[in-house]
């Protein structure tokens, strides 16, 4: 029963949230508090959000897998944990998958229709604006994690970050593989971290 509830809850969350993982966060918080509040207190979920940022994979999948593992694990051992994760993850992925398959089929047929073309002429620049906003979010997180203050410019972390950013941006435009860039920046983070500069 717990597994059906996991699947259905995350299926519903997958259907009703637009605009990516972070839009999903509040919905997940609400549903978790409502259904599994005793198993997963608010602080655990908040902590996990932080963990999820430093582990690979789409945010939404990480959240679903985590909630599923806790709720499933409550039913028994290792097998139940895996099953719980599986149900929640399937639930959050399936709506996307089905909707996109339908939309992709329709889009391939209507992409040259006038209405779709005109709508896309507004949507494409909107995507540029939305991505710019996402970048702003990361920019603040990287350079001013505790909010803006003039004292920022006296910290070594600011200049080290700026240096890593300058190097990686040049490499990115030189079409170095993104995975290599991610690994390089991780190594730089560890090195400067232990030096106490970042």
């Amino acid at each position, binding site marked *: 029963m717990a597994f059906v509830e996991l699947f259905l809850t995350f299926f519903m969350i997958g*259907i009703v949230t*637009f*605009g*990516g*993982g972070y839009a*999903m966060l509040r919905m997940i918080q609400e549903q978790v508090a409502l259904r599994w509040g005793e198993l997963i207190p608010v602080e655990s979920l908040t902590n996990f959000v932080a*963990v*999820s*940022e*430093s*582990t*690979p*994979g*789409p*945010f*939404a*999948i990480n959240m679903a*897998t985590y909630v599923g*593992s806790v709720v499933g694990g409550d039913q028994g051992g290792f097998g139940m*944990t895996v099953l719980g994760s599986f149900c929640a*993850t399937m639930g959050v*992925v399936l*709506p*996307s*998958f089905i*909707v*996109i398959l339908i939309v*992709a089929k329709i*889009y391939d047929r209507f992409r040259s229709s006038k209405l779709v073309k*005109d709508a*896309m002429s*507004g*949507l*494409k*620049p*909107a995507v*540029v*604006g*939305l*991505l710019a*906003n*996402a*970048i702003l979010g*990361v920019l603040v997180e990287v350079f001013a994690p505790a909010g803006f203050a003039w004292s920022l410019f006296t910290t070594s972390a600011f200049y080290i970050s700026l240096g*890593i*950013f300058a190097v*990686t941006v040049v490499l990115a435009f030189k*079409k170095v*593989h*993104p*995975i290599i860039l*991610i690994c390089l*920046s*991780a190594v730089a*983070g*560890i090195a*400067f*971290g*232990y030096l106490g500069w*970042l």
Partner: protein
Amino acid sequence: MKKLWQIFVSFFRIGAFTFGGGYAMIPLIQHEAVEKRKWVTDEDILDIVAIAESTPGPIAINSATFVGYRAAGVLGSACATLGVVLPSFVVILALSFVLSQFQDVQAVQYAFNGIRVGVLALLVKALWTMYTKSPKGWAAYVVMGVSFLLTAIFSDIVIYVIIGCAVFGIVTSRIMERRAQ
């Protein structure tokens, strides 16, 4: 069969190296699916992200499913989605047993401080690629500016911005055609 395997492997790699949400995946998709495999073009990516934004569900899953579909139909989309989900699933499941210890590992914190900067650089490049493929002209610049400002100021309005921009696109196209006549 070989192509399906390639799709799975590419998206597995993409899933394993995406940190922090769907947008961070765009540069990786551009590299794997456009530059390396040529399953789609840079223009397609812009279309695909626009559609991923305007349909329910995580952008990452939506984009993966769509690229997979373009590359090899329904089976392609299944392989892409499975590939992109699997690394997350395995890593989180493994972590769920040692979660409290993981948060305390200093090297992980340091590595992530670096990775965030790398992701920022990748996103800047992705933004540039998308900008060059986007329509230009006053209407397009208005949409870019307004969608940026609105989402920067208000939270939870992405879907309204998307609907508004689609309608704006339709209306301005009509107006410009009427003027041209």
